[in-house]
């Protein structure tokens, strides 16, 4: 009776934005990003990438409640020259490039395997 639509776990509501930001009042150079309708898939990926950035002093994510599809990603940078938004943006760009690289690698690896194993000329 109260069950929400299954598609509510990945489709944005009308009044929701995908990403929201609120700067931390008590800690300098820190802020929390709220990703709506996301889960561990993207959050863990972003967090691990942020931790590899030397400008990041703190990066962590929370999934506050399993029934509410939001992720909080808290980032603190080590200097005030670099804002958390920039660091996040760089992390997303790096991941995007990594995925592109992975796609070319997969294509090449499959072609190589097919040549070596002499598959019949079916499909690509």
């Amino acid at each position, binding site marked *: 009776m109260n069950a929400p639509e*299954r598609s509510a776990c990945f489709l944005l509501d009308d009044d929701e934005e995908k990403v929201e930001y609120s700067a931390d009042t008590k800690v300098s150079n820190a802020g929390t990003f709220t*990703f709506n309708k996301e889960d561990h898939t993207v959050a863990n990926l972003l967090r691990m990438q942020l931790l*590899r950035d030397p400008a990041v002093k703190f990066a962590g994510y929370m999934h506050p409640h399993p029934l509410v599809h939001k992720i909080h990603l808290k980032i603190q940078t080590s200097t005030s020259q670099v804002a958390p938004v920039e660091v996040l943006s760089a992390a997303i760009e790096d991941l995007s490039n*990594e995925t592109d690289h992975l796609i070319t690698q997969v294509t090449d*690896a499959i072609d190589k395997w097919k040549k070596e194993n002499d598959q019949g000329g*079916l*499909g690509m």
Partner: protein
Amino acid sequence: LELVLIFPLKKKKKKMPQQRFPKIEILSIQPHHIQFILSETDTSMANAIRRIMIAEVPTLAIDLVEYAENSSVLNDEYIAHRLGLLPIRYVPEGSMRGGDCHTAFLPHTECVCYDRCPRCSVEFELDVDFDKVNMTRPDQDRDLPLTVTSRDLISNNILVAPAHFLNEEEQDEAHDEGISIVKLGPGQNLKLKAIARMGISKEHAKWCPVAVATYRFWPIITINDEACQMLTMEQKQELVEACPDRILELDEITGNLVAVENAYEMATYTEDLKVAQDAMKKRPEDDDFVKVEPSTDRFVFSVETTGAMDAEEVLFSALRVLKDRMNYLAAEVEKLKD
């Protein structure tokens, strides 16, 4: 004269990106099963790919069923549930492989049509009447129930059809010509129209393209030959037998402990080896003779599909979904910069 030196405003230098360059090595490819090694990347990337393959790769599945007649022993929603779980295969023009349907179809919520159209859905018709079909069956079968299978679903899109079998082997072994839906007896018939739409597994498991999508960690087996010199042959044999996953063996010629060739397929990282070694060590602080550790950046993936898409296509689709997600998030985060 005053010399006025004008320094240009220092531009914020873009940080060196912390990008990784992962490597892929294919172990085997069959139409429905792919095994590969992903290396030089993090667990988070491996897990993200796994999660996307399970939950977010779009496929086609029957979503609505309109009944004209159903006098079978199963009720309407039961048959609709079974129809929904049938794997639906989209084969692009010129290819023989189950492919990615996201280029050919729009998600139902995004389509601009009023109710449904060929761009966002595929219609299947099923019309089986026991008495009509019975007349064409050989005499000895006339009393037997008639199985309505996935072969009876007739699609309005020539590129889309249910995946009746996973491979030829399954087809040869099967009693029916396709996936059985319901069995009819004399006087029973089933007439329905089923509409298939594109969706992702997050919404319902019927849209899941994979049966299995998992990864293991590559085992790093270090054998301390020096320390092993102090062991007797019986002790070495004991170590070989201590592992339930049998990743060690005794080299016949040299008598040394070596790792089995396909150790990566079998390693389960149990404590048995450690316990056995502790019993053999002279002092507890001594080095281990054999150490087996899971690697933190090398993963052995195994992906098996349900038949709706080919295994490589699932992998490509998952990577595409990840890339599109990253691009979407990048655009949304840009908006926050203002």
